[in-house]
């Protein structure tokens, strides 16, 4: 999976899980202010990302610092590159 494919998949997963429009999925979009997602939504975000990318997120301190979609993209790419053998389950 290329970095671009990983970003597209992340956007699609979040759009489906939280009924967001793909045109809302801009890197500068803030989860709380722009996408209206809260800490409970973060729980479900972890589930869909872990299942799709086959890596663990929940206890990762870097995940807790994520504020924007762009932060999440960077996080996902870092995790993907840390675990190059992780295979998308989608």
């Amino acid at each position: 999976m290329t970095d671009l494919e990983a970003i597209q998949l992340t956007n699609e997963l979040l759009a489906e899980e939280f009924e967001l429009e793909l045109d809302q999925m801009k890197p500068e979009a803030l989860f709380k202010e722009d996408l209206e997602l809260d800490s409970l939504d973060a729980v479900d975000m972890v589930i869909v990302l872990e299942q799709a990318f086959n890596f663990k997120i929940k206890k990762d301190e870097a995940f807790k610092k994520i504020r924007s979609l762009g932060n999440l993209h960077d996080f996902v790419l870092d995790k993907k590159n840390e675990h190059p053998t992780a295979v998308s389950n989608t």
Partner: protein
Amino acid sequence: MYKVAITGIGIISVLGNTVDTVSSSLYKGQSGIVIDEDRVELGFESPLTGIINDFDPATRLSRKQRKTMTYHAIQAHAATLDALEMSGLQPEDWQNDQTGLIFGCDSSSIAAIEQVRILKEKGNTGLIGSGAVFRSMTSNVTMNLNMLLKTRGAAWSVSSACSSGGHAIGQAFTLISTGQQDRVICGGAQEINWESMCSFDGLGAFTSNTDAPAKACRPFDKNRDGLVPSGGAASIVLERYDHAKARGAHILGEVCGYGFSSDGEQLSNPSTTGLSIAGAKALKWAKIAPKDIDYVCAHATATPAGDSAEAANLRNLFEGCSPTISSTKSMTGHELWMSGASQVVYSTIMARDGFIAPNINLETLTPEAEGLHITPTTIERAPRSVLCNSAGFGGTNSCLVLKY
């Protein structure tokens, strides 16, 4: 003490999903009971159930909003929006600490089952999802409605088995009467899935009369053999009468008395005195004599013991006179936690539309009810002073007096 007005009603019922469709079903004596093929395959003693048709949970709520809501909470939300629309109240009227929410609800089965299944399959509580903890609580209805409507007063659920809805209305009425709240959105909600009913089915309390589902539920009939489980959600807007009048609201009726009691005897067999004690207290609060009640919306679920006990209680209370009586459960089945609230909605519909709904399937009156005026046919007269009975496992009784 303040007078309490009914200014809005809403309902998602096996008789329909709007007040008008429910009114038509009540008037015609139509049943909402079917055979559930899943229950046949699963080995239920009785596969009969009430069924709600054409309800789309996504109509008024997003997926994110529904994530923390049970199906019956979603139905309660729909019924509440309808009730609020009927009341003419606006969000600025209810988004304050003088507006409360009280619903009757005594179970939430599906989330508990799902969370255990996911944990056993995945071995990780983190994969259960964020909504299950909220959906597994019996207060699911009020916690979600509170967040969605942004009321800031009372917000809790009453759990008292099949009188939950009745006590919820009674407590809402009490809070307004005593000036602790100006308005309360109240009601009852009941899940209808087979998972929540299988253990109850195992008690043998459900009717096995499967030949004609519409005729299966036979309250007060000599040949009744059990109840039919059912559900949905009923919502009522209660307000301080003087406030409702001042804002020019259309007042549908009044709640003017509430009485409660408990049998202190058996878990599943009601006493012959408890319900009538609650009824006498409700009449006393309302300052109405028994002879002035012209309709009783009975609890009668069509179990042999329950209907006999209610008949005895009605005799105690009315002492030789009998108002017109019917059990809407003959059409709806037993809406359990919701039933005490739905009876208020059904009675208010009857008053609004000028009829008393029939106790269908009453062919041969049970001997215990001799002398009680239980009507098997629709009566073309609006009820004016109504007693709503509800009773639950453990012997908890609720009686409400309504005036129209």
